[in-house]
């Protein structure tokens, strides 16, 4: 960035990387499964921001079409993930990720 006042593509990429990092911290450190799923949505949004920023830089619409597909996939994954969460809650009466430890030795 040659200056902080002229907003270039790199500004959007840095913002996307910061959001990605926040999402990764949320996935790795939180205990509530719902908040882990919301951090995954943060990660997907950071990727979308990267895609649309590059689409603007190169001039074609391919990045925006890809971003629309990512939003569609995020909707499908959120629905299935929340269904799994409901089934998990019905079994164990808790929403802790620490309780999912059947494979622990």
């Amino acid at each position: 960035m040659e200056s902080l006042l002229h907003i270039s593509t790199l500004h959007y990429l840095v913002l996307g990387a910061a959001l990605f990092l926040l999402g990764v911290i949320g996935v790795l450190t939180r205990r509530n499964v719902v908040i882990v799923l919301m951090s995954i949505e943060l990660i997907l949004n950071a990727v979308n921001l990267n895609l649309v920023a590059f689409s603007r830089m190169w001039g074609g619409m391919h990045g925006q079409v890809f971003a629309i597909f990512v939003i569609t996939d995020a909707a499908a994954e959120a629905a299935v993930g929340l269904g799994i969460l409901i089934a998990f809650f019905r079994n164990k009466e808790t929403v802790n990720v620490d309780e999912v430890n059947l494979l622990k030795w």
Partner: protein
Amino acid sequence: MAPVATPFFFYLFAAIMLIGGILVITRRNPVHSAVALIVTLLAQASIYLMLYAPFVAGVQIILYAGGIMVLFLFVIMLVSIDRSLRERQFNSQWLIGLIAALALGGLFIAVYLKGKNIFPERPLSIMESDNTQRVATLLYGQYMFAFEIASLLLLVAIIGAVVMAKRRI
């Protein structure tokens, strides 16, 4: 021409997004996290508008903030018990996770310092006013196969979510 974003609006929406992201990962109450995520998604739709992508901004508001987050709020109300609000909120491997995330952050900083002069600022010749038409031409032309696969994926997701959440299969 570079994205014609006045720096004030970019920094304002970037600050809203980052503060919303920090609130998502640090709030104890999941409803507060969901509301912070809605604010983050709406600020991101504004940044899409600054990137001259009005169709993606509309899809983001309608689908993400208006569909996925409402689904999250419903499920939070179904599974949120008062006991979980008083327990610890970081899981048992939070230290390793934080170290791994900071290593990823270090990798990002290294990539930025090495490659920050790599992007050319090419002058774009058109200021498109037909963004939706161009997206639709690509979506129904070159990416028609992916479009059909996405609709199949949504069908599978609907069936899967209903089966996972039913009480008796």
